[in-house]
């Protein structure tokens, strides 16, 4: 096991307990009242005096040189304040931030060439958005088309004019390398059987209902930008935006607004705030740039993984899984914002919940004439889940054994945790058998098997799928750079901070340093602080800092925020508690060790009358310094800040025998959908859906279930409908929401039956694990398996998504043709 690294000691302070009052309660959300009455302020709701509005002229070509741009007619339109081309922008800002190493340079407005349909070619600031769009139509651009690169496998051999970034060499391969962990060749040599499949995972995206936007202003007197924006990570690396804007980091304040959904897509938005800022500076007025839906679908920062897999699973005849080899071609589009972080992510759980001894991943990240990739619920690991689950299904079929039984046989056992997988990542805890058992119960498998048999006699096709999937949570920064060949941003920290203050009346104020983006940060913070200080959540007010006030905070993403904010609150609350106890001990003339905090007051144990409420202690702490102990380290007030570091992470091995522990808080899920396929039309209907998740200790079961169900329907979208499809010319044929098919309620199962298993993490406070992404990480392989099971009599195999009726019908037609 030494090849897999070492496991540090746990730094957990709060063990899970049965007697928790607020943690574990399905409390109504703190966030909701203002959202329900239309008073939440999202970016587009920000209105500043004299604010101008921006619109962007976008490239109609996938790949072309810009020969000339004439903006004179646009600039002359009444109401237009500024027309900015790529050349103009390059004079006032640098390329956008990137984690890719070596970097792939991305200008905020295209300079000499456009690299995908929808890339910005010019931007207009005007008195209103209508005029700005009118002006865009008046800009005359002459293009010289270049060959479009659309197919990722063809991109492997591009040369000459088909190369997107010639300064990086005569190739569209951004990064190609193989990482190998453990005795892969020996394991393959020892195998009785090798399952080989090619998989195709489609390009989809988070597509929250709210697009990305920013309202920027520039204070010429102070030389300072202020940007209100629906981005995350502003207190982690917001300074990167300042660098792009060519100001010192303290000359930029990023102010978060509410975000109307993210699912990863607003993790670190860069184009939109930079564009708003350079326009604001140019026109001397605040500028709002709110993407419209086409801005967003064609040129957001966050189309998701778009991969071809050639996968091989080696196993023994007795069913023992041995080793996994994958060749991956990932179509990154035209730029690489997060480097190949999605593949760092995928290494965290690429062996699934199974004991697999060795792994080899051969990755080619290619550049094509498409929108760039970003994050979407799973950030690459959802694809790895699909691949391993499909391979295990195929292995079971090949061996002629039950798909469930083969999983059980190879599950990591409960007594094997913490468990290091071949890549070096740790699975902190788990009980996969228990999750499977619970799901089988909820799914009523026997009933549906009987239904399936009956239906087949009547010529109907019912199928049952089972997927048992990992749900890693709490990334450390390693995932962004571990694949890089050259040194880049090799950070090892990914903390989250909070500030907590008890005012002199005993009310609690919490400042979060990461934004709301559709999750429940205020509810979680209130529940954990209420637990820690034994107060009522109604006495807690939650606000958000900007970068001026902010502590180092990575923010939501990678299912990390609940774990991280819980840790930060525990850290801050313990400081406050300690101070209260010291003051109380002094005032009640008691020993600190004889005191306890209960029901909002410090008690002397065993003396019912001897107590001081938090309000009384806060009053003393604020206004009665001379009544407190005369200790130098004690100061007035009752407040604390705490930056909670990643609970357990280690560095990659210098020789890359393993990549260290980088994504260890490991949840698990089992999804069992039951579907009926109409073989004449290829339509899929859900008859039942059961999902059980183990996200460790649950802070709020209601909101966790919300994530599970919402994520599952995202997964249905990925499996059945959604695709950013580019044609041969590189035109995005699904840029509108009439064509990019987000599930409506009619495509969602009426009842997703959700169950829970709680296997606490030994490393996080209270044993909490993240659960923000699991639905989408478990749904697609389960749905694929169910469809395949339904069509078993026809011999259809599923290795490519999505499966809208036309695609599924094509598979059925082919199978029927073979049979006939």
């Amino acid at each position: 096991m030494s090849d897999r690294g070492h496991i540090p000691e746990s730094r957990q302070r709060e063990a899970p307990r049965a007697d928790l009052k607020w943690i574990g309660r399905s409390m109504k959300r703190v966030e909701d009242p203002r959202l329900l009455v239309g008073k939440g302020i999202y970016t587009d709701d920000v209105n500043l005096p004299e604010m101008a509005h921006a619109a962007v002229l976008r490239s109609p070509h996938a790949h072309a040189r810009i020969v000339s741009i004439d903006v004179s007619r646009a600039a002359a339109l009444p109401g237009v304040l500024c027309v900015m081309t790529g050349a103009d922008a390059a004079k006032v800002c640098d390329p956008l931030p990137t984690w890719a190493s070596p970097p792939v340079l991305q200008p905020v407005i295209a300079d000499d060439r456009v690299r995908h349909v929808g890339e910005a070619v010019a931007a207009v600031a005007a008195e209103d958005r209508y005029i700005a769009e009118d002006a865009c139509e008046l800009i005359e651009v002459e293009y010289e088309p270049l060959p479009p690169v659309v197919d990722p496998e063809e991109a492997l051999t591009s040369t000459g004019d088909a190369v997107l970034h010639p300064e990086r060499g005569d190739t569209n391969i951004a990064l190609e390398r193989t990482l190998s962990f453990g005795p892969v060749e020996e394991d393959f040599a020892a195998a009785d059987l090798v399952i080989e499949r090619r998989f195709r995972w489609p390009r989809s995206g988070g597509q929250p209902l709210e697009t990305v936007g920013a309202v920027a202003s520039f204070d010429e007197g102070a030389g300072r930008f202020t940007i209100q924006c629906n981005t995350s990570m502003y207190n982690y690396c917001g300074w990167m935006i300042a660098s792009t804007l060519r100001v010192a980091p303290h000359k930029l304040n990023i102010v978060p607004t509410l975000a109307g959904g993210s699912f990863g897509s607003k993790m670190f938005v860069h184009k939109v705030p930079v564009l708003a800022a350079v326009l604001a500076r140019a026109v001397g007025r605040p500028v709002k740039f709110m993407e419209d839906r086409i801005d967003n679908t064609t040129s957001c920062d966050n189309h998701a993984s778009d991969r071809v897999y050639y996968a091989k699973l080696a196993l023994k005849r007795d069913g023992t899984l041995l080793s996994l080899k994958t060749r991956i071609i990932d179509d990154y589009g035209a730029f690489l914002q997060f480097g190949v972080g999605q593949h760092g992510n995928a290494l965290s759980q690429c062996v699934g919940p199974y004991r697999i001894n060795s792994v080899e991943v051969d990755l080619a990240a290619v550049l094509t004439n498409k929108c760039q990739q970003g994050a979407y619920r799973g950030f690459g690991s959802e694809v790895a889940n699909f691949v391993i689950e499909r391979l295990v299904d195929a292995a079971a079929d090949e061996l002629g054994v039950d798909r469930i039984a083969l999983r059980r046989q190879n599950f990591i056992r409960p007594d094997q945790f913490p468990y290091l997988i071949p890549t070096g990542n740790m699975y902190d805890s788990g009980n996969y058998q228990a999750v499977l058992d619970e799901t089988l119960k909820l799914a009523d498998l026997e009933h549906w098997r009987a239904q399936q048999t009956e239906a087949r006699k009547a010529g109907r096709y019912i199928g049952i799928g089972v997927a048992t999937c990992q749900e890693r949570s709490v990334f450390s920064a390693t995932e962004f750079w571990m694949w890089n060949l050259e040194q880049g941003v090799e950070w090892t920290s990914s903390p989250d901070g909070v500030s907590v203050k008890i005012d002199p009346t005993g009310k609690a104020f919490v400042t979060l340093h990461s934004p709301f983006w559709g999750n429940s940060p205020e509810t979680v913070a209130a529940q954990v602080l209420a637990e820690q200080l034994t107060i009522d959540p109604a006495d807690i007010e939650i606000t958000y800092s900007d970068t001026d006030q902010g502590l180092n905070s990575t923010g939501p993403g990678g299912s990390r925020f609940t774990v991280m904010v819980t840790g930060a609150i525990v850290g801050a609350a313990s400081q406050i508690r300690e101070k209260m106890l010291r003051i109380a001990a002094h005032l009640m003339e008691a020993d600190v060790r004889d005191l306890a905090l209960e029901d909002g007051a410090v008690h002397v144990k065993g003396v019912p009358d001897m107590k001081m409420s938090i309000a009384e202690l806060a009053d003393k702490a604020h206004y009665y310094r001379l009544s407190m102990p005369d200790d130098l380290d004690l100061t007035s007030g009752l407040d604390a800040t705490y930056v909670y570091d990643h609970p357990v992470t280690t560095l990659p091995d210098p020789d890359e025998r393993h990549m260290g522990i980088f994504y260890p808080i490991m949840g698990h899920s089992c999804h069992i959908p039951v579907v009926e396929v109409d073989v004449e039309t290829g339509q899929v209907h859900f008859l039942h859906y059961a999902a059980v998740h183990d996200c460790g200790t649950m802070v709020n079961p209601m909101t966790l279930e919300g994530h599970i169900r919402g994520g599952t329907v995202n997964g249905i979208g990925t499996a059945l409908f959604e695709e950013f499809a580019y044609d041969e010319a590189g035109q995005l044929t699904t840029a509108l929401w009439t064509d990019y098919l987000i599930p409506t309620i009619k495509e969602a199962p009426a009842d997703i039956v959700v169950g829970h298993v709680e296997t606490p993490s030994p490393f996080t406070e209270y044993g909490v694990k993240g659960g923000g992404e699991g639905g989408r990480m478990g749904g697609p392989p389960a749905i694929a398996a169910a469809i395949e099971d339904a069509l078993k009599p026809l011999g259809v195999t599923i290795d490519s998504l999505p499966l809208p009726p036309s695609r599924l019908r094509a598979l059925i037609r082919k199978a029927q043709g073979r049979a006939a």
Partner: protein
Amino acid sequence: MKPPRFRYLRAGSVDGAVQALADNPDARILAGGQSLIAMMNLRLVRPACLIDINRVPDLGYIREEGDGVAIGALARHNEVKHSELVRARCPLLTEAYESIAHHTVRNRGTLGGNLCHADPSSETPAVMIAVGATLVLQSVGGTRAVGAEDFFLGTYETAARQDEMLVEIRLPGRGADGWAFAEISNRHGDFAIAVIATTLSLENGRCAAARVVASGVGEHAARLVPAEQALVGGPVDETRLDAAAAAAAGAVDPHSDSHADAAYRRDAVAALTRRTVRRAAERCG
């Protein structure tokens, strides 16, 4: 995503509207706007002038006309969908409405506007052809009635001249005994990948007349005459169902797009033909 500029005229009467059309050769009618405004927001269409008929009084009627039904140009989809008169006399249209758009869109959108928009994947044109509806067009020169079959000429193209306004839709009394509507779309309520609207009459167990009309699989809704011919004259049994389905699939020349390829549309036409004909025959009692 904002619409381009246009001149706005509000009509107070049908006569006023058609006069405005005559006076403004670059104008078109704005009814519910549920398709038109979306396309204007995308700047895919840019009429120089819109004549808003939403204030024209008494144009949203749904009333008996002989043994049929007359529907005014401003009747909203939801009013037609929930009309007992329509259900009694043209149940095919009522059934089709289960697949048409979503509630809020149906609140504003009008049947007349939908027909004039002539989207090739729209459901209502197929229904109109299947039941043999008549569309009444008015201009300053007078009115004329056009059979639905002659009204739809191409993608977003109808027999209505620029100076004509659709003022009334006339549904005949129930001519056929059996009827059925079926649609496939990727998501419920989306524009169709394929639609089949079928009407059928049986005499002594044999098919006496049939209309099988497709939408979504060509430039406009159209009868699939070979499928109809395959049915007429015999019992609606499995052999004829197969023949009709095959004939229907052979009669269309569908396109491929991001929603479905041509082969799928052909398969869908076959499947929906079989299903609607079977159901229509069952309904003949």
